[in-house]
């Protein structure tokens, strides 16, 4: 009977999801800003950041600007996207099982 029907979202549910997602987005955005702002701060305050050499010859600062930040953005993106989608999936819609609705015999259910 469940095939082809789905419940719509009530305003309260949408509002709840909206506010939870806003927390997720703002939280990740703050992390993003801190990481981006950390670079100029480090290059101003810490000589080690731009003048020492990692194995291979690059300074930590160059390594981060050349590779590290892109990896960081990608990881941040994957984490934020999967968390947001998981939140939406759990907070909206039904948790109904898609397939069989049969109850194993003898499991103690006595609904008509």
């Amino acid at each position, binding site marked *: 009977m469940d095939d082809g029907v789905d419940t719509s979202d009530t305003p*309260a*549910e949408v509002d709840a999801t909206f*506010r939870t997602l806003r927390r997720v987005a703002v939280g990740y955005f703050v992390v993003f800003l801190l990481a981006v702002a950390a670079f100029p701060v480090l290059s101003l305050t810490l000589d080690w950041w731009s003048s*020492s050499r990692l194995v291979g010859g690059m300074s930590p600062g160059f390594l981060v600007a050349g590779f590290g930040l892109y990896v960081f953005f990608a990881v941040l993106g994957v984490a934020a996207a999967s968390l947001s989608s998981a939140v939406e999936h759990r907070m909206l819609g039904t948790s*109904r099982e898609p397939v069989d609705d049969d109850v194993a015999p003898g499991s103690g259910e006595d609904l008509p």
Partner: protein
Amino acid sequence: MRGGSGLLAGVLAAAWALVFLVTQVLVDPALDAAATVLAGVVVSTVVVLGYPSALRGPRAAPTTRGGTRWRPARRPRDPRGVRDGLTIAAAGQSMPLRNGLTRDAARRTAQLIKPLLGGDAVAITDTEQVLAFVGPGADHHRVGGGLQTRIARVALGKGRTVVVHARDGIGCPEPDCPLRTAVVAPLAIGDRVVGTLKVYRTQDEPAPRVLVDDMASMLSLHLELAEMDRERHLAADARLDALRAQINPHFLFNILNTIASKSRTDPEESRQLLLRLSDFFRYAVRQDGHFAEFSQEYFFVRTYLSLEQARFGDRLRVRYDIDPQVLTTRVPVLVIQPLVENAVKHGIADAVAGGTIHLRARVDPLARTTSIRVSDDGVGMTPEVLDRLLAGGRPGLPESSKHSGVGLWNISQRLDALFGDRYTFDVASTPGRGTTVDLRIPLR
């Protein structure tokens, strides 16, 4: 370790190792010590605060494509009726007898304690047969065999420790038996003797009696705890069964009336309500574990509240405030919805202007607790009403209070059984100002 603490510790250790590697080993010149420690502290803070979202959040991320939606957790029952996720049973796993007097547990216990007792052979029996025998003589003192020795029967009958100094005293029918002396101590749960612990020696000097006595009383304590656990689980199961059968009939009548009255004016909405009602019942009758993911309990609560909103209209307002991290934590089943139902019934239903139900759920990553608050700004309750509610569902109360849904008493009893004293459950109510229920449970 509980609730992923081990994982967290591992991640922290790895973070420090990485900081050390990057700032000290792979780089020339190395970063000075103060800056390294600062970097490590920053990384650790980020890991601890971000742990619930980064490591917990996506862990159980459902597949959005392909149509395999996640289904309610359904775990197999333990044959002895002890279900998954019961923390009391999980504590003290190191002593095998903690799970009861079985052959397997007895064998592992005997192997464990033999070196401690200074005996050559150790046996554990129940009142009928030998459950485990470790050491010389195991060829004829067989597991599963009846109690051959007379002294065991003495120890069982009198409930006190017996020391045998001579080979004859053991009463073993096998003439080649190498065992010469024995100390036999009873194992008891309360006053009831349920078995014996036997320590044999192949020399003439018996094992120290005090040592065997102490060991036997320690094992007895574990057996007693195991028994208590089992009784608790049975009681908690019984309460959960009672809870499932306890969907308030008034609620059902009311919502069916609402649907019937809307079926002509707004067929689409009444269809939606029927769908939600079927979701509601399906969830209520299908829970067969003690724990569920918070998101599923939340689904149950919002299904319930959307039905009540159809009945109360604008008088019932709802506000959810939910941390993303809470969604994947595991909470006791059928606890939040009764709290919300109470708030609707005792807070909003009698308020002329209606009111707002507020459900707030948070995770505290440092204290590792989940806190859930259900509050309303309805009429509130006098202390007498609150007392009656707290006693609601208690066996032996007059019929009138039984139909008021699931009592808070039932909930707190179940929480007792599940968490012992590791939870808090506070109800505060002011007449005219509303009621607030605060629940804090360990994160898992």
